[in-house]
């Protein structure tokens, strides 16, 4: 059926409004109404006029039980109340409060100090050397089987973007266990996929800003 010409739309809306449509056509028209504001407006004009047919009707008082029934329908939970309602309600309320507290606490802890990314850096022989956990503003370094570093040397941690030069994240603490604080730009850097690498550098880190010594460990930083 063609619903496009204004005359046709007007006539169909009239048929629908007065109730002349057979059930299948009615359903199809109702489906069209959902997405067609102009058709709804056209229908409403007919309905506005037809409503005038009810105007001469004398208002009829409604018995109070009808209102009670309406209230019961829109608030069904006030019906079918179990006898031990106060106890169960308190218990339920208590349980809700407890779980809310737990969620909030966990959420605060999580937001404050959650591990967001993690990397296990492997040696050239694929031995896990150390594990790095990325928190919001620092890296936690845990040694696994970290080679001893001779005096006068430092291990430096690098982030290597997919396309780009390595960026220093700082020195691995001497005993291999500890934290490396991250600057804002470093935090930005590790939000995208990067490879972490540890190179052997002169004590205090690379003098050039780029790795100068051999890469001892490396591995991708993965989202948890």
């Amino acid at each position, binding site marked *: 059926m063609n619903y496009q010409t204004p005359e046709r739309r007007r006539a169909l809306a009239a048929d629908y409004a*007065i109730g*002349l449509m057979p059930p299948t056509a009615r359903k199809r028209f109702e489906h069209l109404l959902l997405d067609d504001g102009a058709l709804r407006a056209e229908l*409403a*004009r007919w309905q506005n006029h037809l409503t005038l047919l009810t*105007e*001469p*009707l*004398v208002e009829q008082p409604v018995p109070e039980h*009808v*209102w009670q029934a309406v209230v019961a329908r829109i608030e069904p939970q006030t019906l079918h109340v179990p006898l031990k309602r106060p106890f169960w309600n308190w218990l339920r309320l208590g349980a809700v409060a407890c779980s809310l507290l737990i969620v909030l606490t966990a959420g605060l802890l999580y937001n404050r100090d959650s591990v967001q990314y993690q990397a296990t850096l492997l040696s050239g022989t694929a031995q896990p050397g150390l594990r790095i956990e990325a928190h919001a503003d620092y890296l936690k370094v845990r040694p696994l089987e970290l080679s001893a570093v001779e005096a006068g040397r430092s291990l430096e941690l690098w982030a290597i973007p997919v396309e780009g030069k390595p960026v220093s994240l700082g020195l691995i603490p001497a005993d291999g266990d500890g934290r490396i604080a991250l600057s804002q730009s470093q935090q930005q850097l590790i939000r995208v996929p990067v490879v972490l690498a540890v190179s052997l550098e002169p004590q205090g880190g690379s003098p050039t800003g780029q790795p100068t010594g051999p890469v001892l460990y490396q591995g991708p930083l993965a989202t948890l």
Partner: protein
Amino acid sequence: MIGTTPQPELTSTDDWSDALTVFDGRVAILITDADDLATLLAQCSLGNRRAFETLYRTVAPRLHSVALRCMGRSDLAQDVVQESFVRIWHNASRYEAHVSAPLTWMITITRNLAIDQLRKHRELPLSDLQQDALADESPSAHEQLDSARAASALGHCLERLEGMQRQSITIAYFQGLSASELAHTLDAPLGSVKSWIRRGMERLRRCLES
């Protein structure tokens, strides 16, 4: 309402502005304005139960009159009123103020629920209910209505319809009869019934929008 003439009779006549009535010791707010009804509907859509009760106290007698006219039996009419307000509560957010007047929207809900019920009843074998409802459309009932609407714009426009146009529109509106059921009831050809209704509707609308 887009481009239609305002319908002062619908929103500000005395017949339902008497809504200032004492209920349970509380005084319901006097509601005569379509804007007020629209505001109440908006508050209902936000879950405001007090607004809903005010709306109910104001509009229920009006909707009841429509339901009673359709159903012809007060127990069935009350069920329709109850269902109407449940719908109004749950669908208040769907009311489109720019499309129709609040009362039109609510009356349409009631009328549609009523004729849905009547259609279901009619799927059963011919019942007393149907007999009664159809008996209501006797010429004497029309004559009573006619005197009541004599002064209104609608009355004026209905006067300009031919008898069969007016009768078939009225039956279709309040009884929800399909065209073929109407043809059977009025003992007239199907094509004639359809043309009475369609031409009557067009004439009515042109008159009301002129």
